[in-house]
């Protein structure tokens, strides 16, 4: 795929151009915090800021999403609802691109989920490279998500007054083609890109004291560790970690009746495996009643179960759960403790 170059000053016009055809989503300031939101004017888009509270998964898997419309008395066939619109996510970080890959797998395996996949397929992803770590909580380098090879339509890397743009798909290439203001990269641009990548890599430090491929084994060996009890005593079971996680995709399904009392809709909402009732069945049996068991379940999903199911880790090292955790449970510390000082 060809390498292109865009002047930094041309990004605003590009965004304005894209906004004519797409809903453009990107990182902007909201109440002083960085957040992914719909870009209302091109100047809002902040390509150089990171560490958003929530992840862009909400554009493929919204917090609340209608699945079905029905008649309460069943007098007409229930209608499946799939909401999707053309959208560009401009400025997705490598960790979130890696997380999107994970969600793609989860929602396309076995029983493809149209509600996710239609939104996903109608979206174009423009990635932006990180320059330095968000803060002391991110550990993407250790999780292997600092660099992404695929999963984007275009990928921007800042170099001096330009963005050097990798094209990942024909759709991404067509987008630039049609806009017409990107130029072909020259030899100097390629040299510059490699230098920027090298400098970037040096700024990111390894946070784990072991090769992450060993994580499933460390978890397996620690299933009965007292560490889970200790974490369970700290954890407040608030579920914040699940809400901010870019790869958590568990949900609950609920019905709501309209005011006319004859029709209604069924919708899904994000759910949390940390909440006490998550695995409870109607007869009262609760299969993960202890908080430590629920904390362990989450760490095992991220570090073992999803890896076994989909071939990659459910944790991308974005650090969001640590930032959101009220009692400072930090996966870097947990993973390193699991290693056990071998």
């Amino acid at each position: 795929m060809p390498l292109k170059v865009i002047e930094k000053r041309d990004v605003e016009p590009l965004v304005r151009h894209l906004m004519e055809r797409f809903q453009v989503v990107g990182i902007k300031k909201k109440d002083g915090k960085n957040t992914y939101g719909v870009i209302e004017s091109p100047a809002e888009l902040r390509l150089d800021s990171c560490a958003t509270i929530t992840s862009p998964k909400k554009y493929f898997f919204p917090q609340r999403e209608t699945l079905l419309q029905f008649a309460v008395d069943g007098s007409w066939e229930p209608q499946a609802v799939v909401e999707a619109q053309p959208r560009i996510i401009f400025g997705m970080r490598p960790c979130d691109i890696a997380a999107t890959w994970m969600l793609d797998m989860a929602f396309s395996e076995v029983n493809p989920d149209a509600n996710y996949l239609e939104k996903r397929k109608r979206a174009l992803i423009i990635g932006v490279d990180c320059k330095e770590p968000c803060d002391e909580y991110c550990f993407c380098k250790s999780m292997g998500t600092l660099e992404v090879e695929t999963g984007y339509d275009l990928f921007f890397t800042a170099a001096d007054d330009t963005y050097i743009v990798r094209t990942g798909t024909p759709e991404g290439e067509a987008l630039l083609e049609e806009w017409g203001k990107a130029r072909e990269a020259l030899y100097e641009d390629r040299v510059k890109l490699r230098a920027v990548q090298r400098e970037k890599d040096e700024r990111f430090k390894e946070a784990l004291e072991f090769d992450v491929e060993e994580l499933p084994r460390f978890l397996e060996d620690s299933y009965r560790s007292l560490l889970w009890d200790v974490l369970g005593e700290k954890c407040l079971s608030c579920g914040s970690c699940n809400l901010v996680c870019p790869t958590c995709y568990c949900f609950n399904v609920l019905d709501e009746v309209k005011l006319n009392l004859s029709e209604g809709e069924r919708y899904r909402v994000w759910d949390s495996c940390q909440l006490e009732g998550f695995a409870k069945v109607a007869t009262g049996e609760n299969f993960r009643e202890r908080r430590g068991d629920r904390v362990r379940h989450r760490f095992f999903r991220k570090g073992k179960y999803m890896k076994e199911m989909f071939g990659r880790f459910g944790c991308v090292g974005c650090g969001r759960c640590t930032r959101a955790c009220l009692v400072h449970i930090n996966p870097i510390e947990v993973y390193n403790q699991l290693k056990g000082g071998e």
Partner: protein
Amino acid sequence: MDARLLPTVDLDTIFRPRLAQLLNVEEMTAKEKLFTFQFKDGTPLGQDPGQFVEVSAFGIGEAPISVSSSPTRGDTFELCVRAVGNVTNALHRMAPGATVGIRGPFGRGFPVEEMRGRNVLFVAGGLGLVPLRSLIHAVLDMRQDFGAVTILYGTKNPSELLFRNELAQWEARDDVDYQVTVDVADESWRGNVGVITTLFRGLPVDPRNTVAVIVGPPVMYRFVIREVLGKGLPMGRILVSLERRMKCGVGKCGHCQINGVYVCQKGPVFTYAELRNLQEAI
């Protein structure tokens, strides 16, 4: 991944139920009713014994319910339901003619084909008879294909016994060894008293050619599996069906997960060999 690699999907999604009509309601006990349904388009459910469906009471919600009838018995299907939550209480308020939504059948049922030619030892505790009945009917409808058939059934007290007419029929058959026990008797009870493991004393089981199929509450598994292991059965011929909160039924929502396994996909029927290393299973 590259969006072009994502599968094409039917916009008539995995979350849309089909409409089914309630044909008949039969009171089983103070808490359980047996519901007979038929799809409005007349198609059979097409279930394997041991599978479950997601039942919609529109406006209330959806709940996973095991199918209690065998595919060997016609185009209707039966669900035996205890009134215990929002959806199941809504079902209990319904009368024949009412409409529900059905998704499924879902999950892996009992491996009927692999069981052919073998002796079958059924062990049901309480509501466990509900999913087990679908297999018992299938086995009895193909009786000549199986060896010795034993049915052990236990409930807390006589008032909780389900499918009483059928229990009497099983009792009367020469080709079925049917035994029942209750934890606590009442004045009318003349049968065995004691937990279900008491029925194993002196029970003849040929470990070379028997499949044990056990369905009941979690506490029962721990004790009954011990009994059948004690009879010499290999772990791969001990089958159980696990109850979990299958919210979506299609391997997405996460509620039914046991360690790394989605029960709605790999189960609800498992061999003990598959479960012995899943610490959260039983």
